[in-house]
């Protein structure tokens, strides 16, 4: 390991301008988080107050151990969907510590449309449970949902990864021996009823909690039977008569206290044994990341400067420092845990692709989790590179990244374009977690490049009968295309659609990696084995 010697001049005009730009972005992100978490129509807040309900945030804070982190995932899910009216997709998910246990928390947010499940809500729950499965994390469900949002039922019900997948994932967790506790704080109707039913443990609040397949109005319509909520599926009904619920609770806080006690009885799994040392803060201030990330996505920067502000003591052992220099590979410690790091320092050439595939195999062999730091425009194109086999070298990287047994975590620190996204452990390659920085972009190709291609097509159509378009006319075609493309390649769009697990303020990245890397170590991993590399 060597201390990284930063080449950054923090007094330079460039650094200062970047810092202002990126700090503004981070500030905007925080403001979006705040609004998503706390800004609600007054009538919804009043309704919850009448029901003596805590807010979802208060519930989570009560659930967590004092003095421990809560890392919220996909806070801005659905921010570009449903007219922006379903903040966080009406669901809060994250990783936290409950009774000393790392758990995934899934909480319905009853202050958003009564906790209705939208298609992206379903996606968010499924993703949270995928995380639980992939990382062997127990789950605490805080249930308070009015059920599926009927007008959009076609988009949330039937397909493989839609609502049914929630319950399939719960059953999978159970089969893996990973416990779940559901706290029923409101109604769990229809499909929602299965969340507590499929949890090994559940707690229900007397008076406000209820579980049923069909609520009283549906029962009346179906069979004519008139029944109260409590009789049909209240606390005493389920804890004393049906056995659907396990623990009666008097209040929400009581229920949360019981759930904490339950989690405290769970056996903790033995973590994957990787090299660990005492954590050390980075030598360089992580806040300097604001000044390092360029304002313009096309401006290159040295990924070592980012690494120096993430890893323990800013110490890094660089692998093959002279070969394939557009890919930086090496070892470092994050919160004392040894990781391999693969970061982009330019376009991927043949040598850098080979280096990447080789280093991945090395990490898999010595059981070292890998952190991917993406800033990639893609693999080099052109005759020379094709002749040298750039496609098959890229394929080697994809084969390697797909076949890794060690945990992968990906942070898109700037651009993520084209096949570079694949080779650098994009979403499709099952990194255990994937995060974006606020200014980062993700798409098949860069916005200008893509807009040019699309504009050219349109111009060709418009001029098929002959004639030429004025520069203004071309601009009128190009601008909306460019705007649309930019929106869809933004981090906000990505996170709205949950192509990632959330946007990170760069200074939060080290903590986020600590929490998630620790989570990945709960799952045992297989011996190294890969598919066939095209040599």
């Amino acid at each position, binding site marked *: 390991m060597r201390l990284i010697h930063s080449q950054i001049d923090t007094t330079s005009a460039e650094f200062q301008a970047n810092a202002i730009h990126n700090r503004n972005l981070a500030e905007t992100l925080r403001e979006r988080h705040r609004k998503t978490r706390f800004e609600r129509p007054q009538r919804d807040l009043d309704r919850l107050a009448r029901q003596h309900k805590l807010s979802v945030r208060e519930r989570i*804070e*009560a*659930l*967590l*151990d*004092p*003095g*421990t982190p809560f890392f919220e995932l996909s806070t801005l899910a659905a921010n570009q969907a449903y007219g922006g009216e379903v903040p966080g997709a009406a669901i809060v998910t994250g990783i936290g510590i409950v009774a000393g246990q790392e758990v995934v928390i899934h909480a319905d947010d009853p202050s958003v449309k009564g906790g209705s499940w939208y298609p992206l809500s379903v996606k968010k729950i499924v993703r949270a449970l995928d995380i639980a499965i992939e990382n062997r994390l127990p789950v605490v469900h805080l249930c308070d949902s009015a059920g599926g949002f009927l007008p959009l039922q076609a988009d949330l019900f039937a397909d493989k990864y839609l609502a049914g997948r929630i319950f399939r994932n719960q059953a999978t967790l159970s089969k893996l021996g990973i416990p779940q506790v559901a706290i029923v704080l409101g109604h769990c109707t229809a499909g929602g009823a299965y969340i507590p039913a499929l949890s090994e443990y559940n707690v229900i609040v*007397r008076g406000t909690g209820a579980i049923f397949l069909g609520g009283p109005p549906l029962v009346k319509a179906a069979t004519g039977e008139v029944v109260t909520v409590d009789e049909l599926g209240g606390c*005493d009904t389920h804890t*004393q008569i049906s056995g659907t619920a396990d*623990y*009666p*609770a*008097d*209040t929400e*806080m*009581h229920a*949360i*206290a*019981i759930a*904490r*006690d339950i989690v405290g009885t769970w056996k903790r799994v033995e973590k994957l044994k990787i090299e660990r040392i005492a954590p050390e803060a980075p030598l360089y201030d992580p806040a300097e990341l604001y000044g390092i990330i360029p304002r313009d996505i096309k401006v290159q920067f040295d990924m070592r400067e980012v690494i120096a502000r993430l890893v323990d003591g800013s110490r890094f052992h660089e692998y093959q420092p002279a070969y394939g220099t557009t890919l930086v590979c090496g070892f470092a410690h994050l919160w004392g845990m040894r990781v391999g790091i693969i970061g982009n320092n330019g376009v991927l050439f043949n040598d850098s692709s080979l280096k990447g595939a080789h280093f991945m195999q090395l990490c898999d062999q010595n059981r070292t989790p890998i952190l991917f730091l993406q800033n990639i425009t893609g693999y080099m194109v052109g005759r020379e590179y094709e002749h040298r086999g750039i496609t098959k070298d890229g394929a080697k990287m994809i084969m390697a990244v797909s076949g890794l047994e060690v945990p992968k975590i990906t942070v898109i620190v700037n651009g993520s374009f084209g096949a570079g996204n694949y080779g650098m452990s994009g979403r499709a390659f099952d990194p255990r977690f994937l995060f974006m920085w606020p200014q980062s972009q993700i798409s098949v190709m860069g916005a200008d490049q893509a807009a040019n291609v699309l504009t050219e097509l349109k111009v060709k159509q418009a001029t098929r009968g002959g004639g030429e378009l004025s520069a203004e006319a071309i601009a009128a075609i190009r601008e909306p295309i460019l705007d649309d493309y930019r929106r869809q390649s933004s981090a906000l769009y990505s996170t709205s659609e949950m192509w990632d697990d959330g946007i990170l303020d760069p200074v939060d990245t080290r903590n986020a990696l600590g929490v998630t890397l620790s989570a990945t170590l709960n799952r045992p991993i297989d011996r190294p084995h890969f598919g066939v590399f095209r040599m």
Partner: protein
Amino acid sequence: MRHLFLIDEAEHEAGLAPAGDGLYHLLVGGETLAVALDGPRLVTGGRRDAVHVAVEGNVAHIHLDGRAFRVEFREAMARFAKGGAEGGADTLTAPMPGSVVAVNVEAGTSVTAGQIMMVIESMKLETAIKAPRDGVVATAHVAAGKTFNKGAALITLAPLEEA
């Protein structure tokens, strides 16, 4: 959630988390204090005090600054239950069918948690119906010698005032 402690009946919340090397972080209000207890030595922040602590269940008897204090930890489950630690309802129901052997209380009787209020017999087995919490009996539903069915109300305690 943070823990609840009672010092002389007054409530205080605090959290405790490990800080490595035998140190802990005490979270009080918005502050974090590095603390440790090393035998008769209490470290709080930069301060070291001689201390004697004797623990009895959830109560710590502490001798500090030449004074003795009693600090009680309230378990969260008991703290937030409206009734007793079991989170039971105000009405105690029969766990199985049987008959009443003895009734020790009547409406208005003050009971303390654990006090035997009624003895019932089912399947030749005597079971004591104990008060789940401190309170006052509102109704004793069945008299000695009477039989009852499973789930029948036996005794109802007067509901506690909402805090």
